[in-house]
């Protein structure tokens, strides 16, 4: 069915990337994986997504920068894609920081799988 929701996973660790991908695929999501922020922007040029899972700690363009870049996209629809941040050290940033960057939700590592699934479902 074409109503499979599309999730863009941005994560430089293949462990987390694959894990996220598998868990969400099991929930019937269509997953596209990228390894850095720049690739997120590139992927968005080509396609639209229902939600973006974003690791904060990424090379080239980190999650915060990337989120800001997304929010400032010309394409209205794409600029409003929900972003869920994933990070091991959430405390480096305040909730305020996330909000300002345009991040809708924050999941802390170690990832609680239930939380992950629940959060993604909530935004799709």
């Amino acid at each position, binding site marked *: 069915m074409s109503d499979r929701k599309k999730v863009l996973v941005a994560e430089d660790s293949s462990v987390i990337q694959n894990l996220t991908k598998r868990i969400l695929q099991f929930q019937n999501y269509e997953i596209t994986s990228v390894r850095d922020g720049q690739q997120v922007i590139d992927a968005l040029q080509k396609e639209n997504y229902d939600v973006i899972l974003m690791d904060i*700690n990424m090379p080239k363009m980190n999650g915060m920068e990337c989120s800001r870049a997304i929010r400032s996209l010309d394409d209205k629809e794409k600029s409003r894609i929900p972003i869920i941040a994933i*990070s*091991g050290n959430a*405390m480096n940033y305040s909730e305020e920081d996330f909000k300002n960057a345009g991040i809708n939700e924050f999941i802390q590592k170690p*990832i609680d799988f239930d939380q992950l699934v629940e959060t993604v479902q909530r935004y799709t």
Partner: protein
Amino acid sequence: MDLQHKSREELMKIIEKMRKTSHEPGVALPHPSSEKVGLIFAKVRLSELHQFSWEHLHVEDYNQVIAQLFELQGAHSLSLEDRISGEEKNQWLLHIKHLLTSEEKSLSFTGHYGSLNGMQLTTQTTVDKIGRPQEAVQRICLQIVPVYPWVAAPDHHLENALIHSNLLAVTTDHQGKITFCNTAFLDLTESEAQELLGENLFEELMPVRGEKMDMKKFLHLTAERGFTENIKRTIKTRLGKTVDLNLISIILHNEGQHLKGMTILAEDITEQKKVRKRLHETNLQLSELFNNAYDLIQIFQENGNLLFVNKAWRETLGYQETEIKLLNFFELIHPQYQAPTRSLLQRVREEGRNSKFRTVLVAKDGDAVYVSGSISWKSGSERPAEYRVIFHDISEQVKAERLQRLYNSITSLTMQSSDLDQLYFNIHRELKKVMDANNFYIALADEFKGITFPYFIESHGKYFNHEQDYESEKDLVDYVIASNKAHFLQEEDLLDLVTATVIRPRAVIPQIWLGVPLTVNKRVIGLIAVLNFEKRTALCERDLDMLDFVSGQVALAIERKRNEEKLNEQTSRLNAIFESSSHLIWSVDQQYRFTSFNQNFVRVMQSHYQMAPALGDVYHEDNHRVTNDYLKHFIDKYKRAFEGRSSQFEIEFQLAPEYKIWKQVFINPVLRGDGSIHEVSGIAHDITQRKKSELALLESEEKFRNIFESFQDIYFRCNIDGTITMISPSVKELTDFETSDVIGKNITNYYLYDSRTKNLIRKLVKNTSVRNFEASVIKANGELLQCICNVRLIEHPDRSPEIEGVARDITELKKANQALQKAKDLAEKSLKVKEAFLANMSHEIRTPMNGIISMIDVLAETDLSPQQTDYVETIKTSSETLLSILNDILDLSKIEAGKMKLYPAPASLEQVLKKLYGLFSQKAVTKSIRFTYALSDNLPPYLLLDEVRLLQVLSNLTANALKFTPEKGWVQIKVEDVTDPQSLQKYRAEHTIRIEISDSGIGISQEDQKTLFEKFNQADSSSTKKYEGTGLGLSIAKQLVHLMQGGIGVTSHIGQGSKFWFTLKAKATSTPPAQTTDPLLETLYLTSSPKILLVDDNAINRKVTGEILTNAGCKVTLAESGQEALRLIQQQTYDLVFMDIQMPEMDGIDTTKAMKALKLPVQPPIIAMTAYSMQGDREKFLKAGLDDYISKPIRAKTLIQKVAEITQGKISNFDKPKTQNEKGLRVINLEILKELEKFGGPAIVDASLSDFEIEAEELIETALESLKKSDFADILSKLHTLKGNASTLGVEKVAYRAKSIEADMRQNKTDTLAQDLLSLKQDFLEFKKHVNSTLNPNHNV
């Protein structure tokens, strides 16, 4: 000749006279009788050397014949020697020999056979050959006729008789001297008797050609000539005149053996001779004339002997002059003309002549010669009567006439012959008239049948006896037809054809074969042939000409006859059609009178209008029932037809009120050759049935059309290549296409083409129909219409198949279905989550309950006031009840969620029973119940079974038994092995164990027994429950027993106690059970001593939770309300707050909000404690600002883990001093992996661990590399990633190590970094080892 005749008559008279005058006794004169014929049959053999011998000739016969012939009587006999002298005998034999060796059939000669009484016996003998020529033995027939007169009378008698005769008579002695001469002789010789007597007759009077002739010579001559009549002599008269004499008889006078003398009788023929000489001259002239004439001249005697024929005659009839003498006219007449010719001749004799005499003669070669001419009859005294005939040869004319006649007759044969066979016969008959056509056939060449012989006559019946003969003849016919020429073929020509393999060989080749192709309009239809197998000359070129001449007519006749027959057939066929068809056929003339009609017409007229039509009838209103309108209608049509236009119409006849018929009528002009129309034909047939069905069809079609037009779905029909031939109007509504747009287009233009639709045709051909096929139809505006189709292949016997189908719009249906599917998926997923949650909760619930109970026991042992002891006892009872209930609920839900699994391990039944006894003996003692158990001897010492679950079932049943047994009763447990020895063999050491728990309790009614093992059922369901319990125990026991592959049951009677039993299957094992420690008694430690604020309004909970935390090493401050908590938190810094949610006045959420609102410099995480342990709650709490939650009842382990997780995970952020206590950390936290398994099965666990293994190694190696370069930022980054990954997967040791190093680095503590990283690597290697060896088998644990 007249003379001779006359002389003979006279001679007879003399002989008669002599007889009369003879009176000498003993002398009998033979009686001259020309009727007498002697017949002798003989056989003669003729050798090759022409030696001749008699085979059979009886001398006696001969003598007898001669005696009879000459009427010799008495003792007169003839000796053979007498009869035939040597010389004569030789002659005789020569004659016969000649006859036998020649072609001649017979010959005659004269013989002398001695004398009798002076009379010479002379006979004329005719010898006839009988039988075939050239044979060695010949049969001959001798016809012997006596010759007269044989006078042997005394001289004086004779002389007396002759003296006055007109005949010249002279007698001599044996030397020839004249002894007597009569007056006539004297007169002739002009002599006196004296002068002549004594003279030698032969020497003096009858010299031959001037020479003298002696008597012997004369006698010899006589004998040679046979007949004395024929001897002519000249005699000299006294006066020297010569007189011609014809010697008509010589009478010899014998005396015994010696010639005495002879008497010669003669006549004067001098005058005659003169006349004859003249006549001869005349004759010569005439004969020259005759010979030069073209006419056939002949003279013949009355008896038919030919006297004269001319040259033309001879040439025409093909005879030699010498043969003429032997011919007889009557023999020459064609057998068919014998009778008429003879009667004609008779008339000629009466009338004298006939100038229109016609007859047919047969030539020597057998040809018929047609003659006509004049004939005259000459008779007179002078000479014998004769016919003189002059014929013209009219053969050619006759032939021409006959040919003409033949031609005409053949032409007319067609009329005379009733059928083809008759015609053939007649043709043959006519041909036979003109030629030897005894062997005749007609061959017909047919394109299909080849050569056939419709008429074949072979008169011999022996030359066409084999198929081969006919085949050969067919070849010949083929050959001649191909040449298209008349053929005249003789035997050798035919043999050449055989050699050239033109015709096949055959037994006998015809001698002659004549064949002429039959040609009609230059087309060869066959051949006529005549042939002869025996006589080559039977047919000649002329016959071929004749055949050729008539062949055209024969061909025409045959063709005409054949056509006639064909026409007849056709006519009869047409007639048969005319009469036999079910159609009414009639015709009318311009006055509308019937000129013809068939029987059907009559029958229908009679049955419909009760009147029979007649030829010439006019149908008008008065005389029939057809109403005016009908008549007018028909008249109109007739008029049209007379104008040359055909009509066709259907007409309804109302024959009776309820009886209607329909006819289809065709009215056509009957066109004559010149285009004029004198008649009009009508053909009608009944179409009532058709009409009825047509009307019915029309009706049903209308019905169908109505349905079709109001059809909601799209009905379509197309041919096999997809061209749409029919589509319902609904297409407009659904797709916005007009029907006219779509018809004729290809159907593939109107739906989305993909692999599925591609296979449709294949499926269709295979199954002839496809149902519920989903397709996307393209609408006029390009949108897609989701359709479900039923498509069917319509096969036609006579043309290519068609496809029809119905497409239904299911766009809405599809949407609804999708929504439904989604809802269903969601529902199923939620249910699964719920079940999984419950199942997972079991452990979490049981552990704290056990903690509570344990703590209560601990508490009970402390110094308590009696009141406190009482309280503690109450708490303990409640806790146990609660635990039991919880256990039951959780077990059941676990079973139902399919999560309940058995973990078989070696166990001793005896041990199990001991444990059970230990558990329940105290209670039994309390109730004074005799509680015993017994194990049978045959039990295996160790079995593989799940001891915990077995104990659970046993406990349940034992507890029930104790519960329902009044004081001083008994409870007994019996364990035995009931394994069937055979099945034990079969299933390898799998034993069936049966356990019975009997009691002397209150018993259970039959009715209650039925529902005993169902969920939530208790035997006592009254409101005032005497016995406690959830009612789940037996249900759980039943489920567990099922898991153990056993059964469970009860026998009981009210008041007589109960006996519960169950069985289980377990394999025997030799391994003794391991010594296990109670998991519930595990010691829990924390690695640090965080300061914790515990907020709970419930004192027990506060107490229990506080105790657990304190025991785990935490510094606990208790707050019994939200307000208190707020106060405390402002006085002191805490690492963590545990917040009960349900509190009076200020609940946990409000308190949390208030705490957050305080904006403390260090905000500790706040953990909710709630009994709402369901999924949805967690979210609510998190939203309220709570950092985490923990469900009630609080279990020690979970609580401590939570503390460790939060404090140790975040401790650095709070700048908390920490002790690096790694105790309690696991290489891998299986719980987390189990959690992960929920999201994708074991595969996701394996894959993730594998990913981690690879990446972690890389990260660690990279970090070590970076250390050499003192790239701390990179190390930090790697550690950060490793920490997150490891903690997510529950790789706790690695996660913890990474986190510690990261924390140290952030505080710039890098002095131990190298060593720490190596430790990290060590931890990782430990993980690897763990994963590869021990972990995998436990994945599904």
